């Protein structure tokens, strides 16, 4: 007589080290194999879009810090670009360069955590992530120099940045840019051909190109599936059209490719920072903007290539001091759309890796 079996429901999270915040996967298992999965979130919902309707345009910048708190600078940048588009503000040259430098440093910092946490999920517990955090710490020191903060920087302003960099910043940045490629080589040596990483991530959680596009994936997740799409090249904002850099793309769309794309992007970011450091002019870092901005009636959508993907702000103005509507196009949320397709058919231990390879930040998913 055949053994009678029935599906088993297992909740992974919301509080679990591998869910990177408060995320719940409600999985249905057949033995150890996942047959269905429903992502459940909202545990960190703070209603930022609603809060934004009550605040002045400048007052919203600290809220954007708390979206993807591992990439506050990119959030600041996307939001400021949207307001500038709406109000027609022109940003001084030096501020544009500072913005690019900060955004690229932020990309490295975010990818370091992304890769480190991914290694944690793979089972290389804490050793690789501590290497990554060692380097990220230097970036946080740089951010502390310019903004006084180490996590929520609130550095950018409508029409520029809040303050100029101190004298010791550029030498420290130069040192970082010269040292970092060596550390990336060190990581590659440790990880890129590591037996454990290859065995656990090659061919696991394949996201086909068509699905990636159809499910609105963006950032490294989209590029790992072989789509050469980067907002910095496709729709250059700020001054990204002045820099030379490549867009690394994967081919298989598996977890390893997502890891690999992130590592290569860090190298490209260093290239951009190097060029920006050479070209940066002197001058004002902020143009004259009234404290209470009231842009003309209208709407604007501005987007940037944040570390996790396309981050967009859609603002509607009714000519008052607060936006009528502020919508945030969160890359972390949309990258989760295809998660169900990725994990079905894999074991629970693989689902953890697949989820880790997408690299999300719950602050941005729930908003």
């Amino acid at each position: 007589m055949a053994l009678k079996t029935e599906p088993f429901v297992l909740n992974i999270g919301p509080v679990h080290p591998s869910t990177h915040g408060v995320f719940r996967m409600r999985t249905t298992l057949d033995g150890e194999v996942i047959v269905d999965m429903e992502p459940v979130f909202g545990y960190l919902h703070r209603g930022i879009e609603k809060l934004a309707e009550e605040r002045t345009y400048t007052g919203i910048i600290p809220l954007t810090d708390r979206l993807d708190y591992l990439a506050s600078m990119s959030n600041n940048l996307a939001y400021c670009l949207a307001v500038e588009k709406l109000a027609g503000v022109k940003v001084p040259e030096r501020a544009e360069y500072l913005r690019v430098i900060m955004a690229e440093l932020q990309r490295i910092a975010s990818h370091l955590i992304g890769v480190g946490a991914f290694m944690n999920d793979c089972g290389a517990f804490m050793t690789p992530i501590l290497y990554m955090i060692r380097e990220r710490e230097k970036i946080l020191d740089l951010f502390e120099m310019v903004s006084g903060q180490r996590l929520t920087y609130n550095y950018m302003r409508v029409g520029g940045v809040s303050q100029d960099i101190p004298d010791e910043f550029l030498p420290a940045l130069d040192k970082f840019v010269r040292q970092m490629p060596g550390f990336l080589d060190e990581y590659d040596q440790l990880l890129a051909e590591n037996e454990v990483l290859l065995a656990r991530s090659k061919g696991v959680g394949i996201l086909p190109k068509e699905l990636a596009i159809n499910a609105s994936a963006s950032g490294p997740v989209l590029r790992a599936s072989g789509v050469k799409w980067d907002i910095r090249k496709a729709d250059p904002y700020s001054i990204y059209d002045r820099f030379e850099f490549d867009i690394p793309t994967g081919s298989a769309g598996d977890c390893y490719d997502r890891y690999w794309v992130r590592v290569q992007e860090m190298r490209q970011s260093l290239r951009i920072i190097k060029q920006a450091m050479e070209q940066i002019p002197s001058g004002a870092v902020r143009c004259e903007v009234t404290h209470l901005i009231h842009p003309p009636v209208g709407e604007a959508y501005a987007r940037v290539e944040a570390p996790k993907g396309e981050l967009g702000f859609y603002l509607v103005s009714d000519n008052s001091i607060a936006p009528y509507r502020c919508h945030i196009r969160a890359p972390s949320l949309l990258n989760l759309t295809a998660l169900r397709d990725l994990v079905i058919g894999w074991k629970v231990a693989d689902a953890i890796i697949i989820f880790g390879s997408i690299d999300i930040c719950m602050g941005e998913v729930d908003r």
Partner: protein
Amino acid sequence: MTVYLSGSKIAKQMTENFPEAVAEASDQAVVVKSESLLEVAQYLKSSPELDFDYLTSITAVDYYEYFELVYQLTSLKHNHSLVLKTRCYGRDKPAVLSVVSLWRGADFQEREIYDLMGIRFNGHPNLNRIVLWQGFEGHPLCKDYL
């Protein structure tokens, strides 16, 4: 560089195929009637010279008299984008057609709009609250929510 297509130009092209669909068009956006949203979206996605294969974002705005749904469409192949809008009149159980069958990326975003604004998407496979809990009363992003 992404080309932002003019709404009025696309509207002209559309009227050839869907004479009744376009409600309003400007340079920034094309507004279609809510009942023809799905067929227009289908046309925008499948027409080879437009080829809007990527749905960047969906959002909704509450203007009291109506809800306006804003679809940011992008074509990765041609690198152009278009803002498609539709309006949903009436505050009592507003509803539009879901585009999940065309773009999977609409799934979570439509659920979010339903959750926070109360607009129902007919044809959505799993229209449940997404960030607030089941049993929550009201839809907080509506302008009349206190």
